[in-house]
């Protein structure tokens, strides 16, 4: 049958219909640098017009590709220039007006999320940065689809401890202002170290200043397909065979993403940016990164051996995906969000998975402490301490790390929060509550690490 074997055809159909293989997101990155204006009203008008012009056909074109080609594409999103860069020009503006504009423009074109209510402060604050950061809780409470991120550190610049101190408060406040909505504000806020400028995934997507005017990024997915492939491998197959199978499956998944990127770029007349080679789980049964680790031979995710299995997975996904795509970028690797992954949720509920183990796992995964629900009475200083620890792992290891924790206001360890949809649900996980207050209140900049003499 043509050049393709029927076994391959049925494998692909099985991946799509039974193993939740999909393209997770097509994200249009739009630069707003030409919308800077000292009059905030004019700036917001320019932003609205630019987004609704550039992305006018985004949803229609992507849905057309999905129907024409028979490829499930889940999300359509937009990332924009960090808003703090525009805010610097208008010192008297209410930053939240910019968030409302992004919300309205995103809704007008029908996308799921708009990312970029962001500031890059890894070395220090410029005009607009502090005002933007202080407005994040209100912006996330007063909008629906706007996502926010702040880059507080990098391998080359060290960690901005003043920003880390502020972000502990902002995470807590974002949860407090949305306490009547499952504290959803904090689920739309990511604190990064080494943030990539071309990430298509939310909540951390923004369009970096080095990017072109407009481009199309694609984030692939498919933990279910990798798990299903591993399930067919004998339990005594060597770990080399496990790595080989993950690479092969990642290659196929990524080629699907590259096909969608090419088609979307061509049909929208916008250059293709990057493919994010990520395994992004969903709360659907079987579509879980934790289940992949368990399929490799762990009784339950979180047990001893978890970090080693995740290191293999993260590396093999990249090796398989790199050859399948023209340009790789974004976060690329295995995501380990807790509330968005059915296997992680179960492991957290049974006590097999703890925040401390998750922190170790973030040293070898693609992002960091993600979608973790913590007790509502956690102090801002403890959250800042958690951010500092996570950022230190990213800084020293020259990788992206991030913190997206949701303080469950009014609730304690053992209870649950349920966000619904792709954000999922999860148990409140206990964390060490002893205070790092003196350390956090010191402020300043934690020096960048040595990049040689590595041992």
């Amino acid at each position, binding site marked *: 049958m043509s050049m393709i074997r029927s076994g391959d*055809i049925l494998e692909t159909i099985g991946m799509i*219909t039974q193993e939740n293989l999909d393209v997770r997101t097509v994200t249009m990155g739009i630069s707003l640098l030409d919308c800077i204006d000292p009059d905030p009203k004019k700036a917001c008008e320019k932003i609205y017009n630019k987004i609704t012009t550039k992305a006018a056909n985004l949803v229609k074109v992507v849905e057309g590709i999905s129907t024409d*080609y028979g490829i499930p594409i889940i999300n359509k999103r937009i990332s924009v220039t960090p808003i703090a860069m525009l805010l610097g020009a208008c010192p008297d503006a209410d930053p939240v007006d910019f968030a409302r504009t992004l919300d309205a423009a995103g809704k007008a074109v029908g996308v799921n999320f708009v990312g970029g209510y962001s500031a890059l402060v890894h070395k220090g604050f410029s005009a607009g940065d502090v005002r933007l950061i202080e407005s994040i809780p209100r912006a996330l409470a007063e909008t629906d689809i706007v996502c926010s991120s702040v880059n507080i550190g990098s391998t080359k610049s060290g960690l901005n401890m003043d920003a880390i101190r502020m972000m502990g408060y902002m995470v807590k406040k974002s949860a407090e202002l949305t306490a009547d909505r499952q504290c959803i504000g904090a689920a739309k806020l990511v604190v990064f170290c080494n943030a990539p400028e071309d990430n298509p995934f939310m909540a951390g997507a923004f369009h970096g200043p080095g990017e072109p005017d407009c481009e199309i990024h694609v984030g692939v997915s498919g933990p279910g397909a990798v798990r299903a492939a591993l399930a067919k491998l004998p339990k005594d197959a060597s770990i080399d065979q496990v790595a080989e199978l993950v690479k092969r499956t990642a290659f196929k998944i990524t080629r699907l993403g590259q*096909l969608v990127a090419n088609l979307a770029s061509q049909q929208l007349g916008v250059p293709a940016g990057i493919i994010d080679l990520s395994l992004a789980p969903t709360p659907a049964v079987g579509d879980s990164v934790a289940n992949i680790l368990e399929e490799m031979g762990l009784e339950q995710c979180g047990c001893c051996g978890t970090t080693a299995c995740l290191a293999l997975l993260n590396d093999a996904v990249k090796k398989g995906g790199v050859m399948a795509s023209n340009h790789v970028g974004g976060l690329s690797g295995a995501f380990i969000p807790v509330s968005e992954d059915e296997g992680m949720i179960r492991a957290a509920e049974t006590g097999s998975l703890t925040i401390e183990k998750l922190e170790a796992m973030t040293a070898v995964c693609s992002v960091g402490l993600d979608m973790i629900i913590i007790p509502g009475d956690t102090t801002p200083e403890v959250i800042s301490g958690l951010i500092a620890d996570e950022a230190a792992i990213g800084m020293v290891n020259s990788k992206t790390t991030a913190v997206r924790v949701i303080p469950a206001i009014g609730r304690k360890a053992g209870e649950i929060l349920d966000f619904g949809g792709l954000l999922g649900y999860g148990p409140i996980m206990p964390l060490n509550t002893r205070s790092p207050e003196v350390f956090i209140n010191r402020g300043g900049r934690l020096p960048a690490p040595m990049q040689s003499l590595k041992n």
Partner: protein
Amino acid sequence: MKAFVTVIGKDTVGVIARVSGLCAQLGINVEDVTQSVLQGMFAMIMLVDLSACTVTSAELHTAFDKLGDEMGMKINLTRQEVFDAMHTI
């Protein structure tokens, strides 16, 4: 514009006739047909040419979904480019 139609489910009488009948009705030329058994389930694969198809892709999917429901089988229509991308280097 080529695509593969896959029909998966419990084997019944007249699967090929009904699916190819619908193809003929919609101006779709069937170029090749193969059958196999996938994990105990019957699987038919048809290579079709959509260039003279008389309806939109959304209507096409609806028509195949409806036929699939009537036969108690799952019908998928996927463009050839998807398989080329995933299974050839």
